[in-house]
C-alpha cells in the first residue's frame, strides 16, 4: 500500500513537471530564439511585493534593469518605476504541442521585458530557453529509452527463448557493450557519424546512438525473465496444446517482463537525458539555435561566463526536480519488484 501511494506520488510530480515543459509556449514569456541584443547577460530579475518606498503592492512587480553608471556589465534595478506582472497576457505567438496556434502566456509585462532567469549572450530569455530546451532533452531521453527497451526486449526474448547459438552470440555481444565505459562508447559512436547536421537529424541521431549504447542491460534482464518464464507450467501446457512460438512469447512470456521493463525505463530516462545533455554540452548534440539543456549550460565552458555571470548555472539547479522524480519513481518500482532487497542492483547503464 505504502509503495503504491509513493509510486503515484512520484508520478504526479513527474506529470506536473513534464506538463510545464510540454506546454512550454504557455509557461514561457517569450520565444526561445527571440533576441534582445541590447540586454546581454542580464541577471535574473527579482519579483517584489514591496517597493523602494516600503509600500506594499498586491500585484507582484519587477524593476527593469539598467546599466550601472560607468560600467559595461554591472546592472542595477531602476527603482523609480515598478513594472507590474500581468497574468494570462497575449504575447509572442507560438504553437501549442506544435499544432495549435496560440498567443496566450501565463505571465508577462507591458512595454518592458522580464527575465526571471536572466538572459544569455544574445539577450534571449533563459527561462523560455530552459522550458523549450526541456522538450528536446526530455523527448530525447524518453524516445532513447523507448528504443533501448524495444531493442533490449527483442534481443532478450530471442536469446532467452530460442537459446543455443543465438543466445551465445547475442549475450557475448551484450557483454561487449557492457564492458565499455558508456561515455566512451557514446563518444565512439558519435565520432563515426556526421558532425554537421540539421537539428532534427541531430536529434534522431542522438536517439539512435543512445539506443545503440544502452540495449545490453535490459536485454540481459529480459533474457533472465524469459528463461524462467518459459519453464513455467502454464507455458508448457500452452505449448502442449500446440501454441506457436510467437503466440507463447506474446501472450505468456513477455508480459512477465513488463515490471522489469518499467523499472528499467524509470532508470534509463534520466540517464539518457543526462547523456543528451552531455553530448549537447560538448557540441556533439543538437546544434544552436534549438535550445537543449546541454547547450544551455555549454556557455559555462567559457571562463568569463563562469566568473561573471553565475546565473547561467541556474538551469542546472532547476532541472534537479526532474531527476529527483525519475530517481524516486525508479526506486519505488524496484522496491515493488523486489520488496526484500535494499537497493542491491546497480541499475541502468553506468
Amino acid at each position, binding site marked *: 500500500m505504502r509503495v503504491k501511494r509513493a509510486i503515484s506520488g512520484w508520478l504526479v510530480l513527474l506529470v506536473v513537471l513534464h506538463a510545464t515543459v510540454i506546454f512550454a509556449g504557455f509557461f514561457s514569456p517569450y520565444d526561445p530564439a527571440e533576441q534582445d541584443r541590447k540586454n546581454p547577460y542580464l541577471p535574473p530579475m527579482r519579483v517584489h511585493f514591496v517597493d523602494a518606498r516600503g509600500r506594499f503592492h498586491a500585484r507582484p512587480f519587477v524593476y527593469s534593469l539598467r546599466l550601472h553608471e560607468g560600467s559595461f556589465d554591472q546592472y542595477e534595478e531602476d527603482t523609480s518605476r515598478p513594472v507590474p506582472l500581468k497574468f494570462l497576457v497575449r504575447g509572442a505567438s507560438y504553437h501549442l504541442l506544435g499544432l495549435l496556434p496560440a498567443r496566450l502566456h501565463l505571465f508577462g509585462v507591458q512595454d518592458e521585458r522580464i527575465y526571471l532567469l536572466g538572459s544569455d549572450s544574445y539577450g534571449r530569455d533563459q527561462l523560455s530557453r530552459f522550458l523549450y530546451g526541456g522538450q528536446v532533452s526530455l523527448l530525447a531521453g524518453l524516445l532513447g529509452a523507448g528504443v533501448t527497451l524495444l531493442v533490449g526486449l527483442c534481443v532478450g526474448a530471442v536469446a532467452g527463448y530460442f537459446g543455443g547459438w543465438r543466445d551465445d552470440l547475442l549475450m*557475448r*555481444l551484450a*557483454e*561487449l557493450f557492457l*564492458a*565499455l*565505459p*558508456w*561515455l*566512451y*562508447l557514446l*563518444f*565512439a*559512436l*558519435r*565520432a*563515426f*557519424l*556526421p*558532425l554537421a547536421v540539421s537539428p532534427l537529424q541531430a536529434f534522431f541521431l542522438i536517439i539512435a546512438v543512445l539506443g545503440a549504447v544502452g540495449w545490453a542491460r535490459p536485454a540481459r534482464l529480459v533474457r533472465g525473465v524469459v528463461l524462467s518464464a518459459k519453464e513455467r507450467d502454464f507455458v508448457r501446457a500452452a505449448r502442449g496444446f500446440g501454441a506457436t512460438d510467437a503466440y507463447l512469447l506474446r501472450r505468456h512470456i513477455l508480459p512477465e517482463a513488463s515490471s522489469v521493463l518499467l523499472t528499467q525505463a524509470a532508470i534509463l530516462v*534520466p540517464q539518457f537525458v*543526462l547523456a543528451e*545533455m*552531455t553530448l549537447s*554540452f*560538448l*557540441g*556533439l548534440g543538437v546544434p544552436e539555435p534549438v535550445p537543449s539543456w*546541454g547547450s544551455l*549550460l555549454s556557455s*559555462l*565552458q567559457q*571562463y568569463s561566463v*563562469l*566568473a561573471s555571470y*553565475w546565473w547561467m*548555472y541556474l538551469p*542546472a*539547479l532547476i*532541472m*534537479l526536480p526532474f*531527476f*529527483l522524480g525519475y*530517481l524516486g519513481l525508479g526506486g519505488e518500482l524496484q522496491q515493488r519488484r523486489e520488496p526484500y*532487497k*535494499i*537497493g*542491491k542492483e*546497480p541499475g541502468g547503464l*553506468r
Partner: protein
Amino acid sequence: MRYLLRRFGHAVFLLVGVSLLAFTFTTLAPGNYFDEMRLNPQIAPETIAALRTQYELDRPLPIRYAHWVSSVLHGDMGFSFAYNSPVLPLLWVRARNTLLLTITAMLLAWGIALPLGIWSAEHLGRLPDRLLSLGTAALMVIPDLALALGLLVIAVKSGRFPTGGMVSLNFESLAFPGKLGDLFLHMALPITALVLSVLPLLLRHVRAALAEVLDAPFLLAAEGHGISRRTLLYRYALPAAANPLISLFGFSIGTLLSGSLLVEVVMSWPGLGPFLLEAILARDLYVVIGGVLLSTLFLIGGNFLADLLLYWADPRIRTEASV
C-alpha cells in the same frame, strides 16, 4: 588457476571484440579527415590521393583491420592525421593524467565509502543512518555535469582554487614540495567532482551488503558466543560481505572512467577526455580508436584485478578452480 585463465581469456575476447566494433563503425562513417583537406584549394588532389593510399583508406576493411592489429601487436597504434605523429605517445601522455585522476579518486571514494557504509549499516534505521541515506539520495539526484559545473562555479566565486589545467604556469620554477602542492591544488576540484559522483553508489552498496550480512543467523550465533562487537564486525561480517563489493569495485572503474571523461573536459584537465573530443571533431580516426581501446584496456585491467581479489577473498571460487 583455471578460473584465472578463464577470466584472462574473457579479457582478451573483450579487447578483440571492442577493437573489431570500433573498426566496423569506421566503415559506417560518412567522410574522413581527408575530405576536409579536399576543401582546401592549396592542397593538390594528387597529394590527397597519395595520402589516402598511404593510410590505406582505399583498401577493404578486413585487410585494414588485419594490418592494424598486427601493428598494434608491435606496439604501434597507428598514426594521427591531425598531429602527424604516432598515436601511442600522444595517447600515453594524456592517459597518464587520466589514470592519476581516476586512481586517486577511486582510492579516496572507497576510503570514504567503506567506513561510512559500515558505520551506517551498524546503526541501521537510526538517525545518523537516515541522515546519511538522505545525503546519498540527494547526491544521486545531481547529474554529473551539474555537479562538476557547480563545483567550478563555487571555486571561481571563492577564488581559492585554480579552475583549469594540471599545473600552474610557474610549475617548473617551483621546488619539489611546491610542485607537489601545486599539483594537489589543481587536482582538488576534479577529484572532488569524481568522488562525489561515485560515492552515493558505493555507499549504498556497502551499506546494503553489510546490512544483509549483519542480519544473518551465523552472526547472531557468534554474538551469542560473546564475541566482541569489533571482532564481530571486522573479522566475521566484513569478509562475508566482501564478495559483492569486490564485483562493485570492478564496476566502479567503468563509472569513474566515464565520469572522468566529462570532468576532464569541464575542468580542462589535460587527460584523455579533451584529447578524444578534439580527435572526434577533427575525425582523427586512429586516435579515437586508440583512445577507446586504451580506456577499455584500463577497464578490463581493473576488472581483472577485481577477479584476482575475488579469487583471494572467496574460498568457494578457489575450490571450484582447483577441481
